């Protein structure tokens, strides 16, 4: 399953090349710029939108093309964008957002979990309270507000960082629960009696045994962040100059691709999203099996 994600990343790099090839053509360049310049009111997409001054060309370009094997493997949209290039470029952007969010969440979560477990007492109480509160606040909604009030568009890595800022509480809770279990293990006390310092115990004794849980939490965070980022972008809060999967969904909704019968516009991103999520699920199920021997025989 990790393989699938790797393949996606490679595809994404190819996607850059593909898109670059297209954008080298000046007319295409302007088309892309215009395309990303703002949301258009929903209307009959076969007519150029009124805000678009250059859109007379649209009819001449290859708009609304069904997929053809060689020219446009995934068709084009109403703005004549090559969806093959868009998707290839979009997958790594979306994955990147998820990875950034996952890394930061797990990093923050693990550090807070260890602070709580190491110092106990007040820091522990405060961190636990913070995670309890954080878990019951839908982070996505908070992000919406912050994003709106900031008034700037978030590029993929900023989006990832934002999602981590609201999502770390889940990692913190998972890791903390495990740290609490480990802390009571006799071998931790044996290590202390062997003269190991607190930090050494955390990194040399506890950390290796936490890796399965941290990895599982990472996978979960990535999945959650991807889901949330697509959601935010579909609401029109993404980076309009980015061809990420979520922005494609936004344009699909904006331009009424469904009612236009342009199935290729939404079907391919949908398939990619499903593959990403199933891969992530299978990775986490595999990790579960690895860290939970009881499930080993069943799954």
């Amino acid at each position, binding site marked *: 399953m990790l393989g699938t994600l790797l393949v996606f990343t490679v595809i994404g790099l190819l996607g850059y090349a593909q898109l670059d090839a297209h954008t080298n053509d000046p007319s295409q360049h302007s088309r892309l710029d215009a395309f990303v310049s703002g949301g258009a009111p929903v209307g009959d997409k076969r007519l150029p939108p009124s805000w678009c001054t250059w859109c007379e060309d649209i009819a001449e370009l290859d708009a609304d093309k069904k997929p053809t094997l060689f020219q446009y493997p995934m068709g084009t949209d109403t703005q004549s964008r090559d969806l093959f290039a868009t998707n290839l470029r979009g997958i790594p952007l979306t994955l990147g957002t998820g990875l950034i969010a996952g890394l930061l969440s797990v990093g923050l979560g693990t550090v807070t979990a260890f602070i709580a477990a190491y110092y106990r007492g007040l820091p522990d109480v405060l961190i636990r309270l913070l995670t309890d509160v954080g878990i019951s606040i839908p982070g996505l909604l908070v992000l919406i507000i912050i994003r709106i009030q900031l008034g700037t568009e978030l590029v993929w890595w900023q989006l990832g960082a934002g999602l981590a800022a609201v999502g770390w509480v889940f990692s913190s809770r998972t890791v903390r629960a495990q740290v609490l279990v480990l802390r009571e293990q006799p071998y931790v006390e044996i290590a202390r009696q062997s003269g190991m310092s607190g930090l050494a115990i955390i990194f040399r004794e506890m950390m290796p045994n936490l890796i399965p849980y941290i990895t599982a939490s990472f996978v979960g965070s990535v999945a*959650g962040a991807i889901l949330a980022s697509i959601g935010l972008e579909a609401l029109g809060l993404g980076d309009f100059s980015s061809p990420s999967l979520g922005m494609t969904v936004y344009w699909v909704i904006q331009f009424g691709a469904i*009612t236009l019968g342009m199935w290729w516009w939404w079907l391919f991103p949908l398939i990619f999203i499903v593959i990403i999520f199933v891969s992530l699920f299978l990775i986490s199920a595999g990790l579960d099996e690895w860290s939970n021997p009881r499930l080993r025989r069943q799954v």
Partner: protein
Amino acid sequence: MANTTTRRVNPALTAKPNPVVAFVGAFFGNFIVRRFLLFLLTVWVAATVIFVLPRLTGQDPVKEKLLLEAQRGGSVQAGMNEMAQEYSARLGLDLPLHQQYVNYLYDLSRLDFGYSIAYFPRTVNDIIVDSIIWSFGLMTVTLALAFLIGTGAGALLGWSRSPGWLSYAFMPFLTLSAIPQYMLGLVMMFVFAIMLNLLPFFGAYSPGNLPEWSLSFILDMLRHAILPALSILLSAVGFWAIGMRGMMVNTQGEDFMVQADAKGLNGVRIFVRYAVRNALLPQVTGLAISFGTLLTGAVLVEVLFQYPGLGNTLFYAIRVSDFFQITGIVMTIIISLAFATMLIDMIYPLIDPRVKYTQN
């Protein structure tokens, strides 16, 4: 000969608690009180984050937006000056920040979110009340159904004595849960509304119909609700089914399951009262935690089907940057979610006898 020495009495046993301390302890030690305080804290933290973070940048985008609208003129021009005044009065633009914060919290505590920028003389509360009914109906029914169906299916999937063919149902459930609700909505809209032309693809009722208590209207309403509901339902069913399946597998490894067999109980009883009953407990905890994720997904489904609920309203508010309305809707959702989670947590000890209200 005995009792020649003065006997020490253990201080741990003689320490008498101060009655005030004891009362305060009992009050805050009470689970319901503590859970309610957590609810208040949650809402307060959310509100504070929303207030503080944007202001850290030093700009006031709301003010800028208002100024921009005022300069641009047009349809909203009419109320814009009043709006700007209202805005100043409400948050006290020139007041120090802490004063603004106090005003903000005061308004929040009365659930007063002020006026909508886009639909000026209307208040945000008006708009929320109009749309929340649709959301509430759609969400509660679909989430409850999804939980019941998903948990039921997961219980059967994870039960070792289920017929073998049932295991083939796992992959479809996994796939369904892997598709975000709004993407599922896209597919359903395409298949049922466009290709087969069976069901309407947007709105909550047919245009031209006015809401009324008549059979035809209710049927029309239900027809419109099917696709959005199904999109949320199918995706969420998979989520619950997978969780429940895992818990069933775990539960069947428990000692009391062996003992239930040793008692020669009939299969249905073991399944329902021993396996499902215990596997269900983490599902309920999951219900509390995953509400948020499921709900934000549902917001997008509303947008997709132009269902006139909170999600759709939020979407339009975002498009026109109607800050007061966005804050109002988001806070409403946050408060209702925190409230629902609190209710579930309070009910939880009733279904799990090991958890006591008084426990620390």
